């Protein structure tokens, strides 16, 4: 079930919310948590009932292994249980997500013909598996686990974050599934929730879906071997750059908003990433919960920056490569990860050289760095979006106009129903929102995570003006439900 669907907005969510508040008022407030678990499992199963069993099994197995591991007295048994839990999670994700890719490559390398059908990827498997891996690692390290099955199930299955994140850390949310906290949900939470949800819905169905009308046909033309004109290629990559941002950050905003209605604060996942001044900062602003996960459970265990410069850069490359692979089983994602790893290495080297020789940042570098960062990021999106390496290369060629005989301003691949001027207008609107306006977190929560790149004057208040603004945004969002598409991050 999509957040931006009639059935979710007009049926599922109101029923779950009313049920939750009614049960919360009874003498058994834990029923409200049980109600949320049931609703979350229903939400998951609504997509494909056949995968509900796998999801439930994954939750129960992880819960059971964590309890067993914690109770074990001998360290070796604890380690064994932890390794079983880790292997179980990795095996599940490998089987569903990477086995086809692995076998295709093995067949190609060793000239074999092992037959294996591509499996349907269970929805949200990357998200809930990673959450549980993090949980298992911390249980092993700290010898403490969640005893309540109900709370554990809710931690993994809580429907706002279940299928496309944010990747929540158990330490952030488990303490919130607390009866006394749930009792004290205030109207402020609901107002913030409504504001987040409305903005997220608008981002997805109005901005991302409209700008997608320009990226989709152009990337598709490149996939079918067509050579895009110079301006077409730029329209394609800019459209996709904004599409993926508004799509995914819109989903995250909706998730945060929905969580707020139940008194649960989910972590911020996007913080104006395109305002970043360098790629290191970009990754602190883009898919923040994934970056934190990769840092805490991959980069640091690999040694982080503690084992010298060369090892640090190697660790960065490995982390980003696996981060790329997390997005999907394809070489394009691997190359996308490697490219970002390369950007990060260059960025760290530059910082190191500046520090070592005590150099001040040159004025023009300061001025140009946000643009350069943005350019690096959009160049990498080509690899991310193009379905084949050949089509990505074809788009790169068009972007730099390698074919001098090809037309510059032709837009023949846009199709009969889209005009280049409309595409340009959408890109302009999206760019304005990205670069000039505050992000939803700054706007609603009035909190700043970074000193620069904020637009502090525009902040949310419970005034008539903002009530009308949010109402209009919500109304326009709901009016666009009829033509909405799936979220990009559902496939991961």
């Amino acid at each position: 079930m999509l957040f931006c669907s009639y059935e979710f907005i007009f049926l599922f969510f109101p029923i779950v919310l009313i049920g939750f508040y009614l049960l919360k008022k009874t003498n058994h407030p834990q029923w409200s948590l049980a109600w949320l678990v049931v609703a979350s499992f229903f939400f998951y199963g609504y997509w494909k009932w056949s995968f509900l069993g796998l999801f439930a099994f994954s939750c129960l197995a992880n819960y059971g292994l964590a309890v067993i591991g914690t109770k074990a007295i001998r360290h070796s048994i604890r380690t064994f249980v932890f390794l079983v839990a880790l292997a179980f999670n990795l095996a599940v994700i490998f089987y569903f997500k990477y086995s086809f890719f692995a076998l295709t490559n093995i067949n190609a390398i060793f000239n074999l013909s092992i037959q294996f059908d591509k499996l349907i990827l269970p929805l949200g498997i990357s998200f809930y598996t990673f959450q549980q891996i993090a949980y298992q690692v911390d249980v092993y390290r700290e010898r403490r686990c969640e005893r309540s099955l109900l709370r554990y199930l809710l931690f993994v299955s809580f429907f706002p974050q279940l299928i496309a994140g944010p990747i929540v850390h158990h330490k952030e949310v488990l303490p919130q599934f607390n009866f006394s906290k749930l009792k004290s949900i205030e109207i402020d939470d609901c107002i913030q929730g409504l504001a987040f949800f409305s903005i997220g819905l608008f981002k997805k169905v109005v901005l991302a879906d409209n700008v997608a009308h320009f990226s989709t046909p152009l990337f598709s033309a490149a996939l079918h071997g067509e050579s895009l004109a110079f301006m077409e290629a730029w329209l394609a990559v800019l459209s996709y750059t904004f599409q993926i941002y508004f799509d995914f950050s819109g989903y995250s905003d909706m998730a945060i908003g929905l969580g707020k209605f139940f008194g649960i604060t989910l972590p911020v996942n996007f913080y104006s990433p395109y305002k970043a001044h360098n790629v290191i900062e970009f990754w602190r602003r883009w898919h923040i919960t994934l970056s934190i996960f990769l840092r805490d459970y991959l980069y640091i265990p690999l040694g982080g920056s503690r084992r010298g410069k060369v090892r640090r850069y190697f660790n960065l490359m490995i982390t980003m490569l696996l981060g790329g692979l997390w997005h999907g089983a394809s070489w394009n994602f691997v190359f996308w990860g490697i490219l970002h790893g390369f950007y990060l290495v260059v960025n760290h080297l530059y910082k190191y050289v500046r520090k070592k020789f005590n150099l001040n940042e040159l004025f023009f570098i300061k001025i140009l760095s946000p643009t350069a960062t943005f350019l690096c990021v959009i160049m990498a999106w080509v690899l991310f979006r193009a379905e084949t390496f050949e089509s990505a290369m074809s788009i790169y060629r068009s972007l730099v106009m390698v074919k001098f005989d090809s037309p510059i301003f032709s837009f023949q691949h846009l199709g009969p129903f889209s005009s280049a001027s409309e595409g340009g207008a959408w890109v302009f609107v999206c760019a304005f929102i990205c670069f000039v306006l505050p992000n939803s977190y700054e706007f609603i929560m009035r909190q700043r995570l970074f000193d620069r790149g904020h637009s502090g004057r525009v902040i949310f208040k419970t005034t008539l003006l903002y009530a009308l603004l949010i109402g209009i945004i919500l109304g326009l969002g709901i009016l666009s439900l009829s033509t909405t598409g799936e979220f990009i991050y559902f496939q991961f």
Partner: protein
Amino acid sequence: MKKIFLIITFSTAVSIYILVGIFNYYIDPFSVFGNNKIGVHFSSEREYKMSGAIGYSHDSILLGSSKVANINPSQIKDVKVFNAAFSAATPEEMYFFINEFVKKNEIVFLGLDFYMFNEFSFPLKNKEEMQFLNKSFYFLLYKYAFSLNLLKLSLRGLRRHLTNQPVSIFPNGQRNTSKDDTLDLESRDENYDRILDKLKEINFNKYKFSYSRLEYLKKIKMLSEERGFRLVVFLNPLHPEVLNLVKSEDLLTFFELFLNESKKIFPNLADFTQGKYSKREYFYKHDPYHYKPEIGARMIQDLVLQKN
């Protein structure tokens, strides 16, 4: 204030929602509700043809590509025809259409084209892509009215109506060809080669013959037998130079495959690809791909007479 904030927010959202719905319902740019008073100004034929097939009284239906969509059905005698053809139509779309809208004892005039079997340029579609054909039609009508995209079209349609711009589609389903007629008067013969090259580039540069679409033709035939409607199938006339183009070395095999397979499925098929309706002067000068509407009407009239 906080409760008032929530009330105002929800009231604003609901008001916008309802106002847009009411506005779209009354303007009805594709005449889905039958309320359209300003004419259909858009070339989104697929949507209109489906609603038109319900609202326009008829006993026969014309189906096919844009060539057929140009035909004025009111010029055809003895039958009351609704022109349900739309540009770049494919066999699967026509099958879904027939399955949904054609009733017993009706007559379906089905015009086929060679391009329709090029799966490379015209990828195979599934039913979900044709949302107006979905079973939950009434729910989709509700989606249609309460839509921001439709608001855009309602406003654009209203503006076109107020500035006296011509409609795109007439109530009987015929495309408004006045623009083509004007262009034709201004056209020059020397542009032919360039136009033909463009045509080849769009439709035939890469050709992948679609066997799945032959299956859809078979399904249409089966449906006609099961449901009891009459099926009159014809191959559209081709301009002599377009015929030469499709008989060129790289396309000839596919073209013959198209002719032979179509004739196998429909033994009584009327093949107009060459012959009395394929004279050079019967086609637009600026667009040798499309025959003129009056030629199409004569051709269908011939088929009606043969049927009788």
